[in-house]
């Protein structure tokens, strides 16, 4: 025990923290076997990147947990102060690389708000389309990895098969598959009409689009077809997971997150909706054209009832279906027009401060931007949803088993670069 303690002390937990843990009221000593410390990560198959959880265990039961983050800290806040507004944009892709379009969207909107830049409506539509596509891609990563963590390997590959289509779509659009750098101040970089895949007919795993088409498949056709077909694929995932008794056993009734706790910890996104609170920033803040989208499609944010892993899972599954509807609606109603407004090459933002937030796949992704009137931000604070979502983990996993830790952590959908920034 002493050895373990020393070793863990050497690697970052402070003395205070350790004594705080050891002073916690413990269970009755009668049936308690010897407790021991265990390290999960930073290199562990299911910590999704480099997270380290220091667990205090009693057999397989977790008594306490201290998450250690910062392994991916790259100082994105500091970097913003050293780069101009334009230069900083590509860095944002690295904040949450699974949903880079959405982080870009947030930053671009924050700067536009502060600099008073108007955005053409067509560009807003395109932004929503790519955002929702990226949300589906992000949820697919979550679903695949969650099922992988629970031991089901096949759904993981199914999910990535569909994600591949989205990646291809983005590649057609901006040439990148992960870090897009696609959005611009005052619009987007390229029009979706210009996005064409010359390798026609394009066949994506059964989705045959525009067979024999001469100029290849264009983005609109393929994205629309994808939005049509994807709900069937979600049915497939549900067939292999939702209707599986073992999966249900592993997810239902595990990792309760009561609503007041979630609010107190600042948990956002599908996690808080799983706790029964329809708090969707797309709907609440009505940024971009989301008000129209919600009115047009009549979608209501899905909510869970109990706040266990199962509810969070169901919420995300439903969100994927909803996103498809949104994409279809946007593609149906997209107006013609310019995709970018005139923005000076050297952008100087007026003095002031603002907070802009969006509904990222993991929750509230916010940017607090302070400008001093120069071409560089004076202070830029990224509020990553994973940071707050992860901080509630110790609360949630106390008293559960290691196997449940995997399910709970998986259901929270934490992305470490987003957490460490």
């Amino acid at each position: 025990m002493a050895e373990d303690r020393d070793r863990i002390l050497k690697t970052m937990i402070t003395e205070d923290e350790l004594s705080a843990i050891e002073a916690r009221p413990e269970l009755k000593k009668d049936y308690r076997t010897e407790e021991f410390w265990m390290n999960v990560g930073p290199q562990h198959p299911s910590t999704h990147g480099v997270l380290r959880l220091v667990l205090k265990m009693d057999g397989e039961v977790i008594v306490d947990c201290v998450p250690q983050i910062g392994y991916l800290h790259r100082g994105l806040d500091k970097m913003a102060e050293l780069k101009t507004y334009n230069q900083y944009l590509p860095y944002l892709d690295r904040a949450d690389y699974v949903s880079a379009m959405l982080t870009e969207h947030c930053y671009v909107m924050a700067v536009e708000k502060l600099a008073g830049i108007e955005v053409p409506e067509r560009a807003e539509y395109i932004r929503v389309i790519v955002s929702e596509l990226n949300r589906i891609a992000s949820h697919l990563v979550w679903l695949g990895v969650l099922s992988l963590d629970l031991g089901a390997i096949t759904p993981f590959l199914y999910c990535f098969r569909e994600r591949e289509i989205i990646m291809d779509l983005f590649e057609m659009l901006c040439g990148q598959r992960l870090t897009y750098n696609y959005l611009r101040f005052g619009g987007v970089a390229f029009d979706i009409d210009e996005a064409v895949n010359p390798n026609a007919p394009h066949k994506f795993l059964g989705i045959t689009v525009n067979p024999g088409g001469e100029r290849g498949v264009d983005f609109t056709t393929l994205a629309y077809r994808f939005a049509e077909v994807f709900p069937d694929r979600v049915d497939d995932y549900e067939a292999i997971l939702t209707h599986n008794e073992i999966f249900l056993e592993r997810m239902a009734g595990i990792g309760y997150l009561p609503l007041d706790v979630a609010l107190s910890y600042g948990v956002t996104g599908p996690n808080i909706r799983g706790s029964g609170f329809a708090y969707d920033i797309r709907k609440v803040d009505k940024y971009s054209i989301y008000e129209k989208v919600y009115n047009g499609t009549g979608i209501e944010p899905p909510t869970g009832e109990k706040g266990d892993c199962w509810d969070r899972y169901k919420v995300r599954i439903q969100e994927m279906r909803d996103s498809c509807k949104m994409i279809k609606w946007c593609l149906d109603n997209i107006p013609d027009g310019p995709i970018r407004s005139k923005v000076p090459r050297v952008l100087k933002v007026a003095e002031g401060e603002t907070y802009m937030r969006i509904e990222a796949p993991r929750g509230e992704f916010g940017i607090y931007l302070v400008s001093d009137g120069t071409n560089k931000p004076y202070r830029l604070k990224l509020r990553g949803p994973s940071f707050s979502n992860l901080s509630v983990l110790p609360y949630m996993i106390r008293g559960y088993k290691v196997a449940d830790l995997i399910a709970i952590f998986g259901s929270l959908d934490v992305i470490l670069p987003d957490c460490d920034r």
Partner: protein
Amino acid sequence: MTGLETEEILSAIVFYLLSGVVVGSSILVITLRNIFRSALFLLLAFFATAGLFITLDAEFIAAVQVLIYVGAIGVLILFAIMLTRRIQDPVAKSTTRSFILGAFVSAAFLFFLILILGKIYLPPFPETGADTEGITKGIGRMLLTYYLLPFEVVSVLLVGALIGAVVIARKEEARGGEPPEVALERERKDREITDSKPDGNGLEQNDRKH
């Protein structure tokens, strides 16, 4: 050298080899300082004993020996060592103290064993025929006819042990007040109350839905 002699010599070699393993590993069991290793040697001794049974054409007994002693009891011992000893200590020591007392008890045990074995009247094992084909059947028939009473006594003893184990396990629970799962669940609930902030604005859950 005739074939028969070779066979005899071979079986003698096998017998002494197995006996050597049994005796040697038994000695190692009590002398080794590393308790995990000594438990492993105990298993080896059991296994070699099964080999001895095979040389006596008692295949059924050999199989049962391996099944119960190696597969069940031995594994249970290893498991218990891993659970009770300091977790993660590769050099868990066995403490062989009071050598003289141990020797005395062993000697006394041996003495009484010889005494009893010499005095006791064992009913002659009825002839089942030289073939080993029906040995399992034979044992089964014997157990349920000729040795029915001892068999039933042993069964009752085992049932008693089983019930005793259950009772002891239940007692542990009763002392703790509640089974671990319940206690953990209760404690989780306690923590929920203390950890979470009181809901200040007095909102009901439903009010928050937009």
